[in-house]
């Protein structure tokens, strides 16, 4: 009987064998896989010193939930640029920032609530879920590219899903069900691999927005502003002081050609905007952020100026190298130090 279905069995068998081999390889390289689960990462500098863990859900130095007197808690609302799972945790800028501020004699605890792929909306949700328990004093917002990607999919790729209310604050995703074949397929290494390899090729076939269309830019700007206003309002509801951080990129000038590897990485994240269009939108987003900051009386910490246009500090258009993380932390510490001292004076 089975011989009749030999073609189907061979197809499924080879797919299963291929997936197993890919998962084995991915697991050995430190990735989470469907069969082998979470990777066994190199142990951090000292056991239990860094999160995330069940008791401390942040990728930064572990701090007790109960506040110490005199400490300033800094909440980082960001994404992969601050989480950077491929970097040792000691080397990412939120941890370096805490180290640097402490070295300058300031008593701070950094709560790095950042995760790859998160947008401002997701940051708001996390702030709402965890903010009350952890009572931050400052909320540092360093977000841009994920929001632009999402807004581009709504405005530029609108034919894909014209009615989707993409600006609604998303509900927590339901726990993945092992019985849902689509979810299982999407968790496979083969799927991930092919999406990342073929995705840019498919994306290249689409006409891309160059960021010069006033109508789309105005709509995108309005959405960016609404998102920044949302995170500021949320921070204030918790009694924290929101601060926005300017967004740094390797090649900020839209006219400047991008190296192929940078362009490919950008396309993987956003195939609807050309590399020129993406950079125009980052400028647009920066202008919107500053407009909101001025209207809301919120400071913008000028960190990007020290890193912008220095590709040696970036692994792609917006993720840092170890040197980039270090410089970013130093620059942010410079911006924060006088404000923290003034704040400490006020408290006294």
């Amino acid at each position: 009987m089975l011989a009749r279905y030999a073609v189907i069995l061979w197809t499924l068998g080879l797919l299963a064998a291929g997936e197993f081999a890919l998962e084995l390889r991915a697991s050995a390289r430190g990735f989470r896989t469907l069969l082998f689960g979470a990777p066994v990462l190199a142990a951090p500098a000292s056991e239990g010193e860094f999160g995330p863990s069940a008791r401390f859900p942040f990728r930064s130095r572990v701090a007790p939930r109960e506040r110490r007197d005199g400490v300033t808690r800094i909440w980082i609302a960001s994404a992969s640029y601050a989480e950077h799972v491929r970097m040792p945790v000691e080397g990412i800028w939120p941890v370096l920032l805490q180290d640097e501020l402490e070295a300058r004699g300031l008593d701070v605890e950094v709560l790095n609530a950042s995760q790859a792929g998160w947008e401002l909306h997701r940051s708001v949700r996390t702030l709402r879920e965890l903010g009350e328990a952890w009572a931050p004093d400052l909320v540092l917002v360093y977000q841009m590219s994920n929001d632009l990607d999402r807004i581009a999919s709504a405005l530029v790729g609108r034919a894909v899903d014209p009615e989707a209310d993409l600006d609604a604050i998303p509900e927590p995703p339901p726990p993945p069900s092992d019985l849902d074949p689509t979810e299982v397929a999407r968790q496979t290494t083969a799927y991930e691999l092919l999406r990342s390899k073929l995705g840019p090729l498919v994306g290249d076939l689409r006409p891309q927005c160059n960021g010069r269309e006033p109508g789309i830019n105005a709509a995108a700007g309005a959405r960016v502003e609404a998102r920044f206003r949302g995170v500021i309002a949320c921070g204030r509801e918790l009694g924290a002081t929101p601060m926005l951080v300017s967004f740094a990129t390797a090649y900020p000038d839209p006219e400047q050609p991008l190296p192929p590897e940078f362009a490919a990485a950008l396309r993987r994240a956003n195939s609807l905007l050309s590399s020129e269009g993406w950079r125009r939108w980052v400028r647009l987003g920066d202008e919107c952020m500053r407009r909101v900051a001025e209207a809301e009386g919120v400071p913008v910490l000028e960190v990007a100026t020290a890193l912008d246009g220095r590709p040696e500090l970036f692994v792609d258009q917006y993720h840092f190298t170890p040197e980039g993380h270090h410089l970013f932390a130093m620059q942010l510490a410079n911006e924060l130090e006088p404000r923290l001292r003034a704040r400490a004076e006020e408290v006294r």
Partner: protein
Amino acid sequence: MNFNSAEYLVFLPVVLLLHGLLARRERGRHWLLLAASYLFYMSWNWQYASLIAFSTFVDYGLGRAMAASEDGRRRRALLVASLTTNLGLLAVFKYFNFFADSAESALTWVGLDVEVPHHRLLLPVGISFYTFQTLSYTIDLYRRQIEVERSLTRFALFVSFFPQLVAGPIVRASEFLPQLSSPRTVRAEQVRRGVARIFRGLLKKVLIADLLAATLVDPAFANLESAASLDLVLGLYAYAFQIYADFSGYSDIAIGTALCLGYELPENFNRPYLSRNVREFWTRWHISLSSWLRDYLYIPLGGNRGSQRRTSFNLMTTMVLGGLWHGAAANFLLWGAYHGLLLMFSRGADRRAGEHAAPARSVLLERAICFHLVLGGWLLFRVQSMGQLGEWLRGVSELRPGMDARPAAVLLLAIAAAVHFTPRGLVDRAQERFSDGFPAPLQGAVYAALVLLLCGATLDTSAFIYFQF
């Protein structure tokens, strides 16, 4: 559960293997396929499975009653009951809101501000397909062209057979019920050919239809006010090949799946854009629907047996209703009327050509003309309102400069056209050579690679166009 989804990749092998295990137990196989078909349908909306079950029970019962009666008036009444029930369901779910809107507009136009009630029911997937399928049974039974089906299981399976349940081909009772009545043997060769056909359909769907939609069609039709004229025109050409690849791809998967189970479904497409006139087009495009309309609507209306005016009326009525079958919207109605007009002119032209022996035009020119006439119809089919139709026409006539379409996307369109115009025999022979001549492990390796390729290239929004009908 789309044919191009991970769910189907799991569902199909499980059904095939269970079906294989039940060899020589036809009743068991029928129950298995019936359960699988309802499971398949309920993956969209479990509640609407009751509609199919209702249609099934009604037509099964009416069919039995019709077969038991020799009284012509009673048989006719039973037929009318079947038509009323099935078309009534279709009217409620598919057309009620359209006619309520139209009535409201008409009343407003004459100065009456009346609110006509609407419903908020979702359109059941595939209702147009299975309704026509069950109707073919009662009509053929009434005409005494087929025998009554005494087994409820077999009849229910005929109505709900999952490979063609939601988007055809529309299978006649006379084609399918005899297959259910005789024991089916599934041979390795059938499975190999079926799998090859499934992958042929998937390639058409994912690599041609979805990519053309994402790269040329959707961007053009989403920006009718500002898109360059060339993009609008390319978008329309691309749509012609998108809808062909999408729908014929679905039919390929349906036919291939049925073949793996030992059943044969009718062909639904035959290189439609090679037609030399619109009449020929309708013998090559959605063949199961056009032949259904011919046999159950056009011919009963009188066909071409009456006067020229009566034939024109019959043609127009058939095509307008055929247009409305696709959807309750003005553009589908216009599309049907447009094809009705084309068919009327085509008949007239053929008659004149016959009388005056017009100089022979080249086949190529005839095909080009026919293709562009059909293309005009696709514009009516693709737009979502008359306003959009006006915007497209304005966009093209304004000769807006520039072109946003990427060269690679235009190349894809050219490839899609080349694939369509490749002689069918060539493709079929290559497919057969592969499925019959290559060892199973090699075929498995190729298919596994294709699964990965298709997973990687599948876009998030990739439902088949004809599911909405």
